[in-house]
Each structure stands twice: as C-alpha cells, then as structure tokens.
C-alpha cells in the first residue's frame, strides 16, 4: 500500500534540503566525474572530447607514475595509521588517569585538532627548515647531529616527515575516541582481574585491550580513509618531491588535472582512489571485526 501519511510528508520536508545540497554538490559531481572519466577531455583542446570508454583507466595502469604513487601512498598510509593509533592509545591511557592537570592536558589535546592543515604544514615545514629550523638547531645543540641537514630534501625520509605532521594533527580525535571507549570499560573487570592476581601489564593486555576493540576499529577505519586522501600537506611541504619521493595518489590526481589539465585521466584516477578507499575500509571492518 502506498499511502503517504503525516510522517512521510514531514520526513520528506525535513530531509529534502540536505538531499538537495548533497545531490548538487556531491552526487551529481560523482556521476558527472564518471562521465568525464570515459572521455578524453584535455582543457587545452576544449572542443575535442571524444568518448574513449575505459581507455583512461587502462592508461593509468600503464603509467609508471601511477605505480610509484601507489607505493608512496601505501607507505604513507601505513605509517600514519599505525603511529596515530599507537599514540592515541598511549595518550588515552594517560588522560584516562585522574591526576592534577589532567583537565588542562585534555584541553591542550584539542589544539592540534583545531589547527588548520595549512598552518600545520607551515609549522612543520618551518621546524624542518634546513637553515633556521628548530629540528636542526635542537639536534645539533643536544649533540645528536653534527651538521645541519636538509630534512625535506632527503628522499628517504620525506614521506615520514610529512606523516609526522599529519599524525600530529589527527592523533587527538583518535585519542578522544579511545578515551571514550576506555571510560566505558566497567570498573568491576579491573577489580576482578586484580583479585585474580593480574599485574598492571596483564590487566592492560587481558582487560583493557580487548575492551578497546570497538574504538580501535573506528579509529583504524577512519584514519585509513583520512590518510589515504591527504593532500594539503603535500602541496605545501614538498609538491611531490624531492624527485618523486612524496608523489602520492592525491598529488598525482592534482598534477594530472590542474597542471597537465587532462581531466579525463584525472577523473579516472579519482575513481580508482575512491573505490580503493571504500574497498579498504570495508576490508578493515571485515577482517579486523573478527580478529581483534
């Protein structure tokens, strides 16, 4: 029976504005982008836009830059997710304790979260600065380093240095999620473990860790989805360099689209990235959902 009663009419009215906005600004572009990805659209030749089917996709997979970008993105994402999660658990363990100053530290935790990514990039780029940066100054003063180094110019560590900046900004939200998860662990479990003679490490491994599973899941999925699409820091800090040391997928898409103005392949790459992100988060949920 298709009768639209008061509930249906109200819901339609309440939901319509959001759906309209999302339709225009998200859904339509997503679909339009698929159309673009099937055409050879180059902005420098605006009148020629032949239909090429899946050629753009096939061309990507023949492109050496694409595979470099996949490798860089993989390393970058793995480092970001692993370190963020690890730090988040540590910070959550600290802030879940009750001690003087704990509230102040909790407020401090929101500072990186609120920092604009452009300022974050600027800040770390300045810290890494080869001549006047804090990192060189600090390490030389302490004696850990003999001579100033060109940090971001070293292809072996560029990716890690950018990851460090990203982790600094995204760790707080992960830590907040871990803290809420920890607060939900019943105190009785710890008392029972104590009575059973478990020491602090055993309590962490056998009580805390298993109970953190839902929060951990959320953090892993969220951080994966976020890290894989990072872009701002790469533009500000290295522009893909030195060489191709920080040439990630997001950066490749940007270069292909806005520097080479090949919109067709750019859109195809976007689709590959979107589907990969989606598949990965799904896989993480399925795989870790059972394991942890």
């Amino acid at each position, binding site marked *: *029976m298709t009768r639209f*009663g008061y*509930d249906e009419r109200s819901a339609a009215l309440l939901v319509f504005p959001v759906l309209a906005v999302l339709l225009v600004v998200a859904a339509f572009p997503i679909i339009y982008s698929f159309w673009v990805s099937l055409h050879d659209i180059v902005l420098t030749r605006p009148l020629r836009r032949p239909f090429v089917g899946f050629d753009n996709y096939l061309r990507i997979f023949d492109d050496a830059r694409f595979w470099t970008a996949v490798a860089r993105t993989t390393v970058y994402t793995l480092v970001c997710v692993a370190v963020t999660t690890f730090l988040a658990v540590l910070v959550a363990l600290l802030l879940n304790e009750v001690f003087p100053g704990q509230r102040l530290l909790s407020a401090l935790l929101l500072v990186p979260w609120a920092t604009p990514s452009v300022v974050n990039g600027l800040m770390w780029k300045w810290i890494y600065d080869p001549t006047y940066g804090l990192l060189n100054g600090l390490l030389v003063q302490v004696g850990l380093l003999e001579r100033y180094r060109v940090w971001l110019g070293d292809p072996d560590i560029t990716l890690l240095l950018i990851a460090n900046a990203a982790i600094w900004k995204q760790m707080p939200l992960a830590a907040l999620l871990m803290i809420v998860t920890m607060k939900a662990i019943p105190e009785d479990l710890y008392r029972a473990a104590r009575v059973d003679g478990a020491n602090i490490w055993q309590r962490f491994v056998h009580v805390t860790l298993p109970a953190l599973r839902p929060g951990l899941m959320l953090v892993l999925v969220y951080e994966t989805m976020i890290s894989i699409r990072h872009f701002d820091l790469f533009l500000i800090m290295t522009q893909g360099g030195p060489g191709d040391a920080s040439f990630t997928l997001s950066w490749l898409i940007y270069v292909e689209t806005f520097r080479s103005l090949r919109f067709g392949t750019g859109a195809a790459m976007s689709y590959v990235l979107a589907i990969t992100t989606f598949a990965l988060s799904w896989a993480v949920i399925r795989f870790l959902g059972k394991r942890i």
Partner: protein
Amino acid sequence: MARITCAALTKSYGAVLAVDALELSIGHGEFMVLLGPSGCGKTTTLNMIAGLEEISAGRLLFDETEVTWTPPHKREVAMVFQSYALYPNKTVRENIAFPLRLRGQSASEIERAVGAAAEQLEITHLLGRRPNELSGGQRQRVALGRAIVRKPSVFLMDEPLSNLDATLRLSMRGLIKRLHQELKATFVYVTHDQAEAMTLADRIAVMKGGLIQQLDTPEGIYERPANIFVAGFLGSPPINLVEGVIAGGAFTRGDFRLALTNPPQEGRAVVLGLRPEDVSAGGDVTARVELVSPLGSETHLDVLAEGGVALTLRVPKEWRAAPGDRLSFGIDPARLHIFDKASETRL
C-alpha cells in the same frame, strides 16, 4: 464522549504479524484492560489507538469518525507511560501545562487548570521542581496530571505502574480507579499484571500472539476461561492443569478419577483445570502432602494424588497438615474446567 472501535486492526512488521485483525469495541466511559505477556501485541494495539504506530490494515474509529490515518497530535487522546516520560528540562508546572500551551490556551486558563489538576493529584507542593528531583511515585502523579489537565475523553495507559514498588503500586491503583470514576472518560489500560487487570477493569481483553484470546468481565474471565492459556494466565497460585481422558463419565488419569456433572464424549483426551481454592474439607479425594507453605491468612499445600497427579491447593489456615500426611478433600464437579487437549479450548 468516545467510543473506540477497532475493525480488523492489523499491524505487521515485514512478515511478522504483531496484531492480527483485531476486533474490539470499547464503550464510552468503559475501563478496558489489555492483558497479556510481553510480545502479545497489547502495547502495539495501544500505540495504534494513540496514533504512535501506523496501522497496517483495518480501520480505527472514535465514535463515528474514522481516525485510522490521523496523526497522534490531532487525535485528542491522553497517554501515560511506564517510564513516565516527563520532559527533564521542564519543571513539573511546565510539564503539566505543556499540552495546554500547545493548544494556545491563555496563561490564566492554564494556571487554573494546572492548579486544579495538581490539587486533584496532591502534587501542588511539587510544581516548582524538576522531574529528576522527584520519586517514582511523584513522577507518575505528574504524568497523570499532564494527562488529565486536558480533560480528554480517551485515556491510554501503557503499564503505568510497572516501574513502582509493590506498596506504591497498590495506592496508585486506587488513585487511577478514582480518576476513572471522576473523569467518566474511556480508559484503555495495558498491563501484564493480572491483579491490576482484575481490580481495575470493567472488561479485560486477554491477548496472545496478536489475537484476543478472550474478552469478558474480570469475573467471566476468571470463572469461565475460554482456553488453557487464559486459565493459566489468571490466578495466583496458578490453576492446576492435569492431562487425562474421559472414561465412564469421569475424568481419568491412572487411578485418579473425578466424576463430572456434564461429561464430554467418552474417550476424549482432555485437560482438567482446577483452581487451587476450589477444594473443600473432607471428601473422597486423597493425596499425600509434599510441601506446606503457610502465608498467614491462608496456606498453600503441594499434594500428590493417585496416578501421580500433582496439585497445589489454597486452603484456610485452620487446615493443619505436615509433609507426609494423608489428606482427604472434596472437589465440586461444577467448579471444574475441562479443556479439549488438541484445541486447548473450553468444553
């Protein structure tokens, strides 16, 4: 004025039928109790009457007006919830005034009505407080106040006393009964508590599996249960149910025989129902006493009769018995309930 008519009222969730073509007519000013175990469809029925759940099929009428598709805020019914459902951010006064405010009544009218309702429920001294500063019983009074202040002709109550402790429940039961008499409104009351149903109801609809099992006055339901389910659901301690066959005009199970006044056909498999209190001193039934539970005003005896028939008896406290004693008692054949074993219905 409100008569409520449910005509083939149905609620389905996918393939599951929560309420199955319910036919029920509730008269003006009647106190109707929907009684049954959880999941029997009683609350769903109430929600459909309130408009809180969409009706899947069938019709609902208030007097002659069809309200099947009328949203709840246009139905002019009042409702009281098990969880009280007081607005935590409003004071008691604001809670009670809320329905009147929504109807655009003037401040002085509201003031007068809230005052009168509060007086009736003896909560005038609580008007300035917030719900989290009240006890459970006080909260339920406020919830009642919010309902009666509108002077609606239909009152719906969803297990209103279930969250209260035993003594409070008794006094609130009295209060609700008094309100019904004073307001002369139609009450539909959902509960799983048979004692509440028996004391409050003009009529009880016993429900199970989305169907009405029996619709009758409390006495009728207790004295002439329509089937084994209804018989077992009412009464404490519950009715004794014994399986057996009809042989020679008597209920028979092994060596246990009870002559019947109006026996069904010979050889039929039946279930015998005997209320624990329907026994008299001295008679031709003998049994061994297994367990004695004195309650002060009366005593409950668990006995084992011939043929392995276990019975619970509710007897006057004067009956002295100890475990192991042999006890003789009488059973009035007119007070026995005989059910068909296959269909579980009364014969």
